[in-house]
């Protein structure tokens, strides 16, 4: 089933239309502060952030470079733990999850989409998706990968390596990979940052369609106001503080 290219690339009223019951993970941050060291300097990336994203929500996070967007995404994605405050995603309290559980959380709850696609050049499009499926010990990795490639319109490019695909195609493969373990939360870090306008719109259409059809929570970090405009909710970070 091909989902892309059939919907207009404009903001929609998501309270109407073919939405499924919301299955995504709600996100709650309470007093989250996070610092990191850069050389001898300690930088406060996030300061006392309070944020609630409802389950199945579609949220854009904007802000200038260095505002703390990627740090916030890393914390929600379980790539690192917040140093203070409380961060819960669905039933998971991320400050308290041990390393193995955190990896399992990333595997089963999160679907990551990176600005630079994050595909392994060593593997074909199909193998990239299958690898993500195999991390969850899926027994149907091959049909799953084929279905998802079909869904993103790239079944005929299944055996192509990332280097043989265009930017837009790579990002669609990345979306397919993010979906293979049926995540309840999709985190997209500048998903259109490396794409031309047409490819960017196709990818956004695809993400929104997935969000609608699967009911997963979608959090998009972007510099692009046009991209942010399409979300249900927008938040802005500046110097590590969430602006009202």
């Amino acid at each position, binding site marked *: 089933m091909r989902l892309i290219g059939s919907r207009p690339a404009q903001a929609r009223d998501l309270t109407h239309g073919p939405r499924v019951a919301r299955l995504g993970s709600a996100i709650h941050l309470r007093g989250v502060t996070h610092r990191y060291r850069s050389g001898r300097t300690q930088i406060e990336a996030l300061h006392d952030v309070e944020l609630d994203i409802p389950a199945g929500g579609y949220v854009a996070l904007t802000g200038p470079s260095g505002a703390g967007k990627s740090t916030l995404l*890393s914390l929600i*994605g379980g*790539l*690192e733990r917040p140093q203070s405050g409380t961060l819960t995603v669905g039933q998971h309290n991320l400050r308290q999850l041990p*390393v*193995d559980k955190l*990896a*399992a959380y*990333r*595997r*089963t709850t*999160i679907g*990551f989409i*990176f600005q*630079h696609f*994050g*595909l*392994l*050049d*060593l*593997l074909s499009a199909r*193998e990239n998706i*299958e*690898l*993500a499926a*195999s*991390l*969850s010990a899926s027994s149907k990795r091959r049909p799953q990968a084929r279905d998802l490639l079909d869904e993103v319109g790239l079944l005929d490019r299944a055996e192509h390596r990332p280097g043989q695909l265009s930017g837009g195609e790579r990002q669609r493969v990345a979306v397919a*990979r*993010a979906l293979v*373990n049926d995540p309840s939360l999709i985190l997209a870090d500048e998903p259109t940052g490396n794409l031309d306008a047409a490819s960017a719109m196709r990818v956004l259409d695809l993400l929104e369609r997935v969000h609608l059809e699967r009911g997963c929570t979608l959090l998009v970090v972007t510099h692009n106001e046009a991209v942010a405009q399409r979300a249900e909710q927008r938040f802005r970070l500046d110097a590590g503080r969430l602006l009202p």
Partner: protein
Amino acid sequence: MTWLDSLTLASRSLRRRPGRAVLTILAVTLGATLLVALASVATSAGSRIVSKLTNGGPATAIKVSASKADSDQAYTDDLRAAGPKAITDATLNALRHSPHVATVIPVITSRIVAVPPPFGAAASPISGVSAFGDTVVGVDLIQAHNLPITVLAGRLPQPRSLNEVAITESYLDHAGMSLQSALGTQVEIAEPQAFQAQNGLQYRGRWIRAEIVAVVSQQVGTGAFLVSIEQARLAQAWAIAGVDGGDAFPLPISKYTGVVVVASSLDDVHAVRQMITSLGYANTAPEHLVASVLRYLRVVDIVLAGIGAIALGIAGLGVANALVAAVRERRREIGVLKAIGARDRDILRWFLLEAFTVGLVGGVIGTLAGLLIALWVGVSVNTYLTEQGLQSIQFGDVSWPLIGAAILGTSLLAIAAGVVPALEAARLSPKEAVAAA
């Protein structure tokens, strides 16, 4: 992540940087080649030296004589005989049931008169130049591998054969034959029996004609003919059926002329010799000589192993270096894998399998190359020895344990070398790794 996924990632990672992969494999190959070649040559040379010391028999063989041991027997490798002492079946049983004894092989010798060809009308009289008195040495030829016997040409007589003999080089001197020309010829042997006739002591012979099937060098007993123990037993029985033939053909005082006792291991030789001495029999074994030579060979082994270990160590550093570079290059990929849920052990397995692949491929190629080099060394050495008129040495026997140990060893070494970079990769923070993109 399945093992197959890890293996796919490992093999494709190697193919992505073919130059680096080839150089790393080459380093392992060179290490394995050097180690296998040195070990193979050292083992061949060492076993050859021990074999030479023991005249082709096992280093654990002890020759027991039908003689009393004198008081110094326990302290020397040499035979210290002090008068006759019969070896009986009871003696053999006692030896067989003693601790640390692997095999007991009785020896029977008998005086004979040999007549080389030609026979019949053209034959020379017994008193002529061609006939000569000598001794047949009879052993169980199935146990020949446990005896100090080296086949110089041909093959050993069939066990229990009554019409095949092996000869020593002294027969060639008597018969005026060359080594190759003697094979396939026949020899007439008279097993003498003394009897009292009206005109005094007379002799008669039990004549056999046997084919010469081998030329051997043997230290089992003194005699130019090696025969089956059945043949020697018949000759002995024939002689005993007569009377004592005086100095020329005396009646045997012992059923067995000697015994070769093979100890279970080199470490047991001393204890077995002490046991034999305590039974009162003189005996000989190159016990102290072999132990001394083995100590020197051990030193050589250690030196060669040290050289091989240095080569393998350098190869291991090559593997580690290549993996460190690979980890640096793949921080983004590692980060992506961790971000999508890969565990530390998934990353660890990827890199360790890559190291293992390098070690395995290098080990297989290096082992084959090492064996070829050992063969080449053997050919070169033997060419030199032959030119110098010396006996050649058997090099390059394929030692499966050595091959297995070399391949397994290099694979494990590569894994060991890859542990630190692989752990570094596995412990990379996913955030750091993604940031590296």
